């Protein structure tokens, strides 16, 4: 079958590590028509090819890495890449997304995606240099940290022109929540995709590409991306210039002011030490000229440039340098009660070099601190594990990465599996949903985030929707128009939140499947129809916006309107659900942990909770809209037919997994 859509490179690389075989296939037309690429295509590949009952660290697991149709093109943010597999942390659908320009390079080399199976007999790396693709010996790099491995591989290949995706020693040690790190700084952090890569003896994937990409309708394409650029450049949020100045660490002080900053393992939601670990503190003290990239860095074709870098010049952690993000600061900082930014920055950099997900690592440490304080876990290794102890926090990062001693080995399981092993009522102190621990926003305050955590296909996660709408004081008219309630944009209101989550979830699925960045529909709302609605409200004559439907159509030549776009998003959410039903996910798993149904004990949000009955009511509405059975959470046959997913229905029907 020929493949003639624009935007795509047109080929899939299949790698069987056990046999050392590499195949180049023509891209699947039916798959991209229904699922576009990236997250959507990866979920479909896993649905079609993965044996659901395998151990995720068995060689039969599949690791998918995919770009989307706009990755590598000119346009407002085109550098994101998707990774998917069966997660060793959660044992369900695992997936993560990273920035940089690695994905673009893969497409310039001629490939949209890579499907990796099997296990190499000894450590190797996959070297892609345009049409030359081979497995090379990586014995000399095994045990090396991300920084050394990446720089060494660039030296071996084409220098900076070679882009590197690597795993670190923690993944090789079998820590369950390891990342794949792209080009030193961008991490596909969550759900342990790096651990799966390590279990396959695959240290890295290097890519050098010199080809070109074609779009279906170049004139129309330029018009569309110009509209999108202007949409971002005129977005009120972008105009504040705050993200470019502070990056995501902007959320530390901001979250604290809004009263949703998880503190001491979610015991509280405001942190007295927030300012000392804030983005402002980092900017003022550590973003010096000697930091690795003093001006900050952007992923491919992004005007936002949200990556901030710094360096510690003196003291105990002198020489620490790198990028920093909000989630890592909260994980090692407020969640552990640590207000020493140098210790937090150091822990963050260590975790990245070991190749671990900062969120799960920090959450495991914070959970242990609380369990020790509650007398449920013994501090057997005598580390002084208690909230606020920065030294113990940093030491635990080393110990977890190396699975050293009892607490290090326990921590390497992640908070949830460790709590199961500890027994007693330890699980009640975790914030895990479907096995994954919660990011840095307390859902008792941000209600749309709460519903998102409960329904997210990869376990507790905000990025499946990124409903920042409820945080940025959008006019009530917008809430009414888009989600049927003037209160929808109020942080602590439940009204309109289900519709808000559904809309964001459909669009987030598209964003992740085409290779664009979530910032552009959360944080900034340069995305159709938000600028149009705001323009109407403020009597603005000229309005620009990012129109995914036109953008994809001009790039690929497919005919996609706004309605069809949302349907594709809905289909992607459903293919992920289909996959998860095979992993045993049902309604009982779409839940919030006990911690979040209990009221916040102090601070400005004292008394706020997310009651179970409230969540159940929202789930009924959500399921009805998704076409899922209210009792079991299985997808209804009629919905799969409506979504043109007959082949998925046939498979699930045979397994008795539809209603």
């Amino acid at each position: 079958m020929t493949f003639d859509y624009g935007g795509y490179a047109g080929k899939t690389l299949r790698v069987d590590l056990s046999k050392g075989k590499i195949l180049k296939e023509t891209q699947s037309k039916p798959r991209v028509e229904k699922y576009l690429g990236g997250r959507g295509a990866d979920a479909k590949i896993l649905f079609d090819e993965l044996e659901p009952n395998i151990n995720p660290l068995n060689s039969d697991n599949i690791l998918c890495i995919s770009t989307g149709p706009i990755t590598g093109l000119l346009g407002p943010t085109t550098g994101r890449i998707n990774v998917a597999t069966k997660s060793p942390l959660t044992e369900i659908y695992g997936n993560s997304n990273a920035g940089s320009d690695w994905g673009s390079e893969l497409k310039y080399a001629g490939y949209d995606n890579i499907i990796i199976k099997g296990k190499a007999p000894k450590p190797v790396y996959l070297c892609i240099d345009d049409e030359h693709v081979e497995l090379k010996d990586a014995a000399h790099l095994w045990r090396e940290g991300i920084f050394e491995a990446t720089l060494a591989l660039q030296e071996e290949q084409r220098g900076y022109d070679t882009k590197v995706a690597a795993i670190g020693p923690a993944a090789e040690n079998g820590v369950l929540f390891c990342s794949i790190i792209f080009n030193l700084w961008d991490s596909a952090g969550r759900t342990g995709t790096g651990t799966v890569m390590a279990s396959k003896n695959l240290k890295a994937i290097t890519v050098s590409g010199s080809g070109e990409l074609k779009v279906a309708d170049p004139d129309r394409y330029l018009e569309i991306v110009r509209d999108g650029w202007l949409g971002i450049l005129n977005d009120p949020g972008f105009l504040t210039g705050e993200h470019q100045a502070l990056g995501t660490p902007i959320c530390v002080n901001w979250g604290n002011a809004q009263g949703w900053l998880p503190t001491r393992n979610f015991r509280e939601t405001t942190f007295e030490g927030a300012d000392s670990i804030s983005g402002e503190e980092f900017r003022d003290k550590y973003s010096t000229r000697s930091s690795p990239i003093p001006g900050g860095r952007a992923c491919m074709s992004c005007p936002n440039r949200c990556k901030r870098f710094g360096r510690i010049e003196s003291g105990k952690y002198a020489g620490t340098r790198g990028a920093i993000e909000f989630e890592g600061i909260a994980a090692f900082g407020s969640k552990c009660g640590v207000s020493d930014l140098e210790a937090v920055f150091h822990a963050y950099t260590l975790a990245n070099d070991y190749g671990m997900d900062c969120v799960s690592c920090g959450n495991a440490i914070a959970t242990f601190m609380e369990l020790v304080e509650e007398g449920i876990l013994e501090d057997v290794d005598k580390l002084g594990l208690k909230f606020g102890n920065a030294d113990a926090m940093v030491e635990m990062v080393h110990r977890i990465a190396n699975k050293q001693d009892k607490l290090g080995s326990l921590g390497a399981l992640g908070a949830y599996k460790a709590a199961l092993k500890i027994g007693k009522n330890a699980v009640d102190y975790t914030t895990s949903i479907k096995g994954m621990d919660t990011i840095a926003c307390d859902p008792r305050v941000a209600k749309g985030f709460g519903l998102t955590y409960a329904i997210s296909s990869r376990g507790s996660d905000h990025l499946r929707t990124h409903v920042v709408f409820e945080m940025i004081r959008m006019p009530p008219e917008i809430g009414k128009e888009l989600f049927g309630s003037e209160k929808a944009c109020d942080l602590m209101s439940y009204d309109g939140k289900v519709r808000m989550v559904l809309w964001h979830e459909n669009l987030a699925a598209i964003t992740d499947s085409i290779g664009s960045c979530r910032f552009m529909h959360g944080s900034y709302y340069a995305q159709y129809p938000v600028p149009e609605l705001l323009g109407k409200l403020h009597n603005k004559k000229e309005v620009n916006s990012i129109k995914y439907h036109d953008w994809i159509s001009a790039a690929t030549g497919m005919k996609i309107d706004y309605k069809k776009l949302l349907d594709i998003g809905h289909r992607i959410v459903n293919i992920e659900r289909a996959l998860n039903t095979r992993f045993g996910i049902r309604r009982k798993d779409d839940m919030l942990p006990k911690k979040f149904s209990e009221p916040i004990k102090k601070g400005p949000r004292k008394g706020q909770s997310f009651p179970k009955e409230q969540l159940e009511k929202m789930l009924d509405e959500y399921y009805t809209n998704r076409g899922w059975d209210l009792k079991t959470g299985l997808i209804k046959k009629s919905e799969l037919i409506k979504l043109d997913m007959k082949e998925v229905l046939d498979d699930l029907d045979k397994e008795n997994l539809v209603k």
Partner: protein
Amino acid sequence: MTNVTVKYLMVFSQITQKRKEVIPISEGMTLQDLIEVLYAKYGRKFKKVFGKDLGHRSALITINSEVKEISYILNPGDEILISHIVGGG
């Protein structure tokens, strides 16, 4: 004379060159009066980033973690936080 504490986040901390300061208030002084004091003290740039033209993204002021009307009468010991509205992470 009594005082309030004003905390500056984001770009406000760059313009003022500080992250917080204590400001004396007189009896009956409103939030609007305080903003005028800050406009006078920090000038055009400060006023600009307050950003009326940013619509829903103009400066957000909370007092003791609550959003208050501009006519709010300040109390000694109030903590006033000035920031932009952002999202992300």
